[in-house]
């Protein structure tokens, strides 16, 4: 498999706070990586840098051949639209847009909208009958499934999920995790931040952080 993500000596500082202190690893295309570690260990900072939402202080973060640190504002915008699919813990849906329009919003910023394709994406996550609902009328699990549909609609190279089940009850968590397993079987590349060891065990590898440093890179089989 080809390397999709290459991180070398990545550092990020917020004033005197060191969020990432020289992190290096690589991710193959089609891999599901679980990023774990205590709060404040730099997991979300890593996701933000890989997604082009934040810039590193130094080091390299190459995604699909593009070094995020070298992109200007316009380049970052294109990078986010074309390469990345984000799924957030807080869902981050636009409250005054329907489920369908939230998915189409990603299409709109990527290129052109295709309502039929957006409906199909929602049907795929089991929300074919909820397309015209506003986020406020959807459960947490349904909102997260809309976010998954939105993340997939532009066929991104890399799916970045920051604790996607962190705000869900057990039943909804199960539904969302099943979706991720499906995506993995379809060979999507997924980097997922999670605190849940059970979810971490579903991934191909676990990258564990502590104090901004990479502590372990483990395969689930190595945990035993």
């Amino acid at each position, binding site marked *: 498999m080809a390397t999709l993500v290459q991180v070398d000596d990545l550092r990020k500082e917020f004033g005197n706070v060191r969020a990432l202190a020289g992190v290096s690893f690589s991710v193959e295309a089609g891999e599901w990586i679980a990023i774990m570690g205590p709060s404040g260990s730099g997991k979300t900072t890593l996701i933000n840098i890989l997604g082009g939402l934040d810039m590193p202080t130094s080091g390299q973060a190459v995604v699909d051949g593009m070094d995020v640190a070298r992109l200007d504002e316009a380049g970052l915008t294109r990078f986010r639209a074309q390469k990345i699919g984000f799924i957030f813990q807080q869902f*981050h849906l636009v409250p005054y847009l329907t489920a369908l*329009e939230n998915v189409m*919003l990603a299409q709109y*910023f990527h290129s052109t909208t295709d309502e039929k394709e957006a409906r199909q994406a929602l049907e795929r996550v089991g929300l074919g009958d909820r397309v015209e609902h506003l986020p406020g009328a959807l459960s947490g699990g349904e909102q997260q499934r809309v976010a998954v549909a939105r993340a997939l609609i*532009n066929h991104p190279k890399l799916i970045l999920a920051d604790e996607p089940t962190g705000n869900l009850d057990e039943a909804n968590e199960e539904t969302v995790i099943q979706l991720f397993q499906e995506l993995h079987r379809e060979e999507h590349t997924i980097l997922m931040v999670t605190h849940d060891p059970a979810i971490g065990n579903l991934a191909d590898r676990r990258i564990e952080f502590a104090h901004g440093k990479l502590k372990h890179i483990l395969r689930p089989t190595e945990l035993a």
Partner: protein
Amino acid sequence: MFWRLLWKLLRGSGGRLAVAILSLVSCAMVVSALLNLEFDIEHKLTQEFRMLGANILVSPRNAQINSSSPAELMSESEVSATVSALKDPAVVAAAPFLYIVANAGKTPVVVAGTKLEELSKLEPAWKIEGDWRSSQEAPTSCLVGRNVARQLQLIVGSPLGLTYLNNNAQFTVAGIVDAGGTEDNQVFVGLAEAQSLATLPGKISVAQLSVSGTSNSISQFAARLSTALPAYEPRPIRQITEAEGDLLSRIRLLIVSMVILILVLTALCVLGTMAALAMERRQDVGLMKALGGSIGRIVTLFMTEVGVLGAAGGFVGAALGVELSRWMGQRVFGTAISSRWEIFPLTIVLMVAVALAGALPLRLLGKVKPAVIFRGE
């Protein structure tokens, strides 16, 4: 998707935007009314100033007014024919006057012979006790100034005998004039009767003209008259024409200042609303940027939203402004101000500009960093 998003933005922020659109409609209404007034003020003011009487005086060259020396008189027919030949629709009234000092009994009085129908057009503001119309129709009717009436103890219907040299004439008082000026000391009779009394057929002392228009156009008309009547001296009555021009300039300055002030205040009001809206939308903008929305595309969306608000506010306000300007015209001038179609698009353009100027906080949303927003800072 752009217009769909725009519609959802407008609906989603209805409460906040209602404040902005209310201020834009109010502003557009007042601005539209003031601009209509500004465009029509010259016409209205000119009409108002015509109430003040003559603004051009035609007299013999180097003559003293009220003199009736034959050498200082003018030909009535020559002046009338020249004024008629110019065929200027701006001439509201042209009244020839022959002034003589006659005796009423033993009391000397200034007698002004004139065309009484022209006098009524020349001096519409005069207060007249009695039947003004009958004095125009009957050749022996006359109008007397209130001071003359008091001095000679005349009332409407009283007989008045006038003597000039060896000639006598009998008149009936048809009205008592309260002009608030020297006219209150005069007796107004028909021009032909005055000429007959003074044995000066076809002669007049002066001609007074009421001409509508600006100070400049009145001066130009006087100049044309001067060319056509080289023996006489037509000249604008400066106190009136200059006062008119001066007042027009002041009112226009006042209107323009008010329009600018209202536009600035409305922009500040919109600014306040948009600042609150911008705070509410930081999260949405952070998300849009995370999804790959460019700054240009996001800001264009918000600016279009504000532009639509401005245009809608301008449209409704301009329509209401037409009614407001009518009401203002009725209250101030007694007639409705005529609306001009060009005010409509001008008001809409001004409101869009004001809304965009007040939308500065939304433009600053382009600087939002998604990571900062998602961290909850």
